[in-house]
């Protein structure tokens, strides 16, 4: 039987779908009866999505000026 501590240890594998069928079943049953662990898993999922969304917000767009600077640098080093 899985206890709550086990759940927190395996939460990642559960969320990323990396458990055997049996393990997944045990996990699901525990979540059905334990509101605390349900909350934990839900919060973990939220965090994962938030981190992912934060990435898309983070400026991956590099300014043209920066790109040109790097390209110039590369060209300088290439001509040797």
């Amino acid at each position: 039987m899985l206890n709550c501590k086990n759940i927190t240890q395996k939460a990642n594998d559960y969320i990323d779908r990396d458990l055997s069928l049996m393990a997944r079943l045990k996990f699901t049953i525990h979540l059905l009866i334990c509101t605390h662990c349900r909350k934990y898993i839900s919060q973990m999922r939220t965090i994962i999505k938030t981190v992912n969304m934060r990435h898309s917000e983070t400026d991956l767009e590099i300014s043209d000026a920066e790109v040109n600077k790097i390209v110039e640098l590369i060209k300088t080093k290439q001509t040797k």
Partner: protein
Amino acid sequence: MSQSLPNDDELIPRLLRQEEEAYTIVVKAYQGTLLQVAKAIIGSSVAEEVVQEAWISAFKALPKFERRSSLKTWLIRIVSNNAKTRLRHESRSRPFSELSPNSNEMIDPSYFDKKGSWTQPPLSWDINSPEEILSSQQLKACLDAAIEALATLPKSVLTLRDMQGQNMDMICKVLDISESNARVLLHRARSQVRESIARCQRK
């Protein structure tokens, strides 16, 4: 502004011919990602320098690139190797293995009793969805701080996996760690970020 990126088959020959437009396309496409990878390993201040050096050595080494992986993966690997080398030389570097990979603790064990039941169960969050969290200046700052505060290796895994969507196989190659180690590190990172957000919700 966003044209679709030419594939490697088209790009690599152009890069080998040292075509300036190809350089520009590739740098524009990958600089952001490479910066993130470097920052995850070595922190913000020298990340730009490390990536610049990586670009230069990458294009020098391009003729020898055997294309067993994509160009992007190859670039990421060069950056991560450079960043790790740099990390070894920095006097203020933190050791890689700050946590035992065998440790199974994701959460402070005092949160559980001897039977493994919660003694301090997670509290409900007022601000509960990713969108709401990112709309809150305070929680967004909390999130950034939480990620920044992670130890080097967990931060790298989190960045590569949850931010950039790289697969585990590639992450293990880039960071030189086993898959089971990577999973532990990822879970630990996510756990710590969750903990930080939980604390900030209380403020």
